[in-house]
């Protein structure tokens, strides 16, 4: 029985953390006295030393004295466990109260040894069992985290389903009367003298109100029921130009200068141009609202192959979609506005979140945009710039739709 256990233990890599030379030597002797003892054994004499060793190489288990020159008591365990949550820790100390043992277990240790009260066999057994318990604990934690993720996805899906049902019901009930009012106004407007300022204002205001109500319903429908895409090979430049032309009036009204920096090497990609146009209009309108008293919006497009450097520079980039060596297209919309408050930046893609409620915002523009980018297999992210203002970024992969053909083509561009 003993032999069998030692057979397993011979692969153990043990880090002993203890500042007492005698204790260290005893432990070393116990761990190595069997022929089939641990093949690797290393000592650290302080907490800092232990952390350095753990950073440098992998260990299966740490045998930890709680009282070290640079850290005392349970704090030693807390610190180590915080920095290395995956490592198995067995506390080994001269404090003989069982209470310390229980506390150690609660703080993340797998076992508790009293110095001088164990032998080679019980030590090896303790370490082996501790490692196994830690492995099971991590497995359980992973399963729990997965379940929690899945549960929140389910809750989100259910929310979306409810919003969807609600949206299509509301859409039908509201759009019909809106259509009636619209055609009523259209008919009546022919009967009045539109050269008269007050009559013109009345009709224009009513039409604007219908448009606003319709836009809100449309956003809601887009947000909840966005499943159909009409993808074709399209030139992104045309889509960007079209979106810009749609907000031109707003740009001029707020005295905002628009600068375009377009990469001419971008090939056609498979997108639903009406949807991407919608996303771009949303981003441009946000930029305009951020600078009510004028300023500058820069729209940039670029194509490049993702390097390690790029991945480091853009932690927001979803590495489940975009990977090293992939050819991607990025569209940036930069404004020089007020930026997004730090406590709100995590919420901007949440449905019904808006900073413009008082000005008629519903808070669906970015939620819809995110949906559109998601079903295109792309990504949208938004961040405050160091120099002030906001950068909104759209990312498309060039070769996800048409396989290697486009990947090869675009490689030559970069």
């Amino acid at each position, binding site marked *: 029985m003993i032999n069998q256990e030692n057979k397993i233990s011979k692969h153990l890599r043990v880090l002993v953390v203890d500042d007492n030379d005698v204790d260290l030597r005893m432990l070393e002797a116990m761990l190595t006295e069997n022929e089939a003892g641990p093949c690797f054994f290393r000592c650290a004499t302080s907490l800092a030393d232990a952390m350095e060793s753990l950073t440098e190489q992998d260990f299966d288990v740490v045998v930890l004295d709680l009282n070290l020159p640079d850290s005392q008591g349970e704090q030693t365990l807390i610190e180590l466990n915080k920095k290395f949550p995956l490592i198995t820790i067995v506390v080994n100390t001269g404090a003989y109260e069982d209470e310390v043992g229980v506390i150690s277990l609660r703080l993340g240790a797998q076992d508790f040894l009293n110095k001088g009260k164990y032998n080679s066999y019980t030590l090896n057994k303790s370490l082996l069992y501790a490692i196994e318990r830690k492995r099971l604990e991590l497995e359980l934690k992973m399963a729990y985290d997965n379940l929690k993720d899945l549960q929140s996805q389910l809750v989100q899906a259910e929310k979306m389903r409810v919003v969807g049902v609600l949206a299509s019901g509301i859409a039908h009930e509201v759009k019909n009367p*809106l259509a009636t009012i619209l055609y009523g106004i259209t008919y009546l407007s022919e009967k009045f003298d539109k050269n008269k300022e007050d009559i013109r204002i009345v009709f224009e205001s009513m039409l604007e109100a219908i448009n606003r109500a319709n836009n809100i319903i449309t956003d809601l429908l887009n947000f909840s029921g966005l499943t*159909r895409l009409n993808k074709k090979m399209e030139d992104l430049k045309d889509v960007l130009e079209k979106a810009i032309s749609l907000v031109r009036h707003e740009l001029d009204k707020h005295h905002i200068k628009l600068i375009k920096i377009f990469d001419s090497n971008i090939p056609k990609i498979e997108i639903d141009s009406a949807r991407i146009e919608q996303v771009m209009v949303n981003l441009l309108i946000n930029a305009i609202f951020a600078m009510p008293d004028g300023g500058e919006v820069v729209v940039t497009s670029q194509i490049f192959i993702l390097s390690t450097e790029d991945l480091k520079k853009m932690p927001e980039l979803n590495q489940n979609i975009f990977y090293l060596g992939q050819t991607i297209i990025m569209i940036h919309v930069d404004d020089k506005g007020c930026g997004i408050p730090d406590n709100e930046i995590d919420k901007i893609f949440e449905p019904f979140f808006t900073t413009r409620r008082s000005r008629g915002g519903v808070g669906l523009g970015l939620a819809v945009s995110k949906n559109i980018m998601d079903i295109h297999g792309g990504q949208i992210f938004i961040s405050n710039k160091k120099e002030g203002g906001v950068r909104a970024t759209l990312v498309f992969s060039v070769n996800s739709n048409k396989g290697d053909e486009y990947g090869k083509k675009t490689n030559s561009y970069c």
Partner: protein
Amino acid sequence: MEKKRILIVDDEKSFTSILRINLESVGNYDVTVENDSNKAFSTALHLKPDLILLDVMMPQKEGPDVAMEIRNNKVLQETPIVFLTATVTTEEVKSQGGWIGGHPFIAKPSRLDVLLNSIEANFKADE
């Protein structure tokens, strides 16, 4: 020139009465309204319209079922149908190029000139 006959099938009475007034005021159309979609097919058979404006979601028979009856009838099968619907958005219609399932679509609410253009375009397509 003889006026074109248009049949509007939609359960929203206020909508159909205002749409009829608008279309008739153009001067080129004779407009008939049917608010009960169960009767849409027999009304169409009696009227033999040059074009049908057909709502999609109606409490009795739904628009696509009415369209199916019309397509299956030898006398009416060539009659152009333009769907009017409050359940899709202008973007969706635009994204599908104005056609859904082989039929021209107009989202409610759409400007009158958009509707008139679609009516005219579909007359021509029929000729």
